[in-house]
């Protein structure tokens, strides 16, 4: 299969990944190669029945009560930008989805 530039741009938009033109071209071929490989599952008529999760644990609940993290500072200090105990982001007042 082949992937068009538009298909890669659509996927990268959904994935929130901005690609350069060179990257877009690279991923057209790269993704097509992997998708071609994984499509082999089409050959198989899968008829597995029943629930089969990865964990048998069902009663993994804890009490619904507030606990505090040991250090708010340790959490916030990784913020790219902060204002005291607030995370700071640029003021995007009119957001447009880019196509």
């Amino acid at each position, binding site marked *: 299969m082949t992937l068009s530039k538009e298909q*890669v741009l659509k*996927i*990268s*938009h*959904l*994935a*929130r*990944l*901005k*690609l*350069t033109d060179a*990257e877009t071209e*690279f*991923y057209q071929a*790269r*993704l097509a*190669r*992997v*998708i071609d*490989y*994984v*499509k*082999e*599952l*089409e050959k*198989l008529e*899968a*008829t*597995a029945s*029943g629930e*089969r999760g*990865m*964990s*048998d*644990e069902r009663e*993994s609940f*804890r009490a619904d009560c507030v606990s505090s*993290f*040991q*250090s708010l500072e*340790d*959490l916030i*200090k*990784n*913020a*790219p*930008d902060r204002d005291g105990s607030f*995370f700071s*982001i*640029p*003021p*995007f007042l*009119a*957001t*447009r*989805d*880019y196509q």
Partner: protein
Amino acid sequence: MNLLIQDLTLERALKGYQKKEFKPSEIVAAYLRHIEATNQSLNSFLSLDPERSLEKAKTLDKQIDSAAVMPLFGIPIAVKDIILVTGWKTTASSKILENYTSPYTATCIERLEKAGAIVLGKTNCDEFAMGSSNENSAYGNVKNPWDTARVPGGSSGGAAAAMASSQCLGSIGTDTGGSIRQPASFCGVVGLKPTYGRVSRYGVIAFASSLDQVGPLTHTVWDTARMLEVMAGKDPCDATTSTQSVTQYTKNLVNAIPLKGKKIGIVSPWLEGCSPDVRSSYEASLEMLKSLGASLIEVALPHATYSLATYYIIASSECSSNLARFDGIHYGRRTRVAPSHLEGLADLYSTSRGEGFGSEVKSRIMLGTYALSSGYYDAFYKKASEVRKIIQQDFDLAFEKCDAIVTPTSPSTAFQFGEKSADPIQMYLSDVYTVPVNLAGLPALSVPSGIDSNGLPIGLQWIGQSFDEMTLLGLASQYENARGKFPRPNI
């Protein structure tokens, strides 16, 4: 090189502490000197903090009389840089987390530290654990200590290289599709992927949440058993951890489950893709198992041939969701492009992520996004989930006939840098024997079995039933004893 380090195992070190032959500060200092002498050529460690490690060691010096009651007293360990340890940077070998400092410690590490282990540093890996060669790190390749022109395997390449080159006495990696076992095989050390749910994933940066597992890499099966029994067990912070009790694996290794009379499952069709050296080492191992009284029985895993395709759909889909959190807002890299040049918040996310993630990570996020998207979800993700159940059923049927399944860990030994970079499928194929195990959630162990004609280690994979790590460790321990001491590379 310090001869003491070259001969030391975790078990031997514990005995040495109990007999007061040496102190933790002496051992840690020796390992730190060795790392200083070797890390530049191997690039196994990304961060070290000698002062902090020595300070912990000196605290333990004063507690040497408690050595016998602390299961990992004074043991220097290395931690894959995808696992959080308070105060240490955790980068996931990515630019997007280049300045991230862990605000808390992963449960698995907390347990190891409480038992007396001392973290020496964080090891290099493939970015976000995505890779099979440690060529996808934003901080450079890790070199295989057996031949520095070759890969150590991945994604826990740094952890495996650190172990093989005697830079620590135990290391912790993660295994989503073989990322502990394959590098263990390439580097000539023991590596275990426990049953899904045996070890907590709290504090481990998620790649694929239904596949990831934390596990040890060590010099011997006993050492692995000791690290597992310390780390394993229910954790209220990880709902997928099991309430099944944790066996005292090392205690029961002494009265090991005898190989004699045991049925070892073999999957002959899998050998078709092996290199001649891997195949002959495998066959020699099977002969050894027969001489120890085991019988070999052919088992069928008819749908295992679909494992890689199933895995790459499921793992990529899960990673596309798990890595959505890296958006430049609360932590991690935010683009420095001025807001006036960005078209809104979504563009801030996209630009930050585009700058911060490497090529393989972007590839897998996009594959996962595609597989989950409208119009493709049924054909890809839903189908893969159904095939996964069939693969699990294949293993269930196989284990009705045998006690453990033994295969080569990887079809080849360590390849050269760049050798498998042109075609992603060629790279993915190096995990063809390990990936089915993750899909089924079973435990599996790689044990060094031989050396190939290029002087490179070969690994033997042992696959067991859910939560039956005891059988795996017991049987593999006897194999290891019969095989004899495995050499270490000359660094």
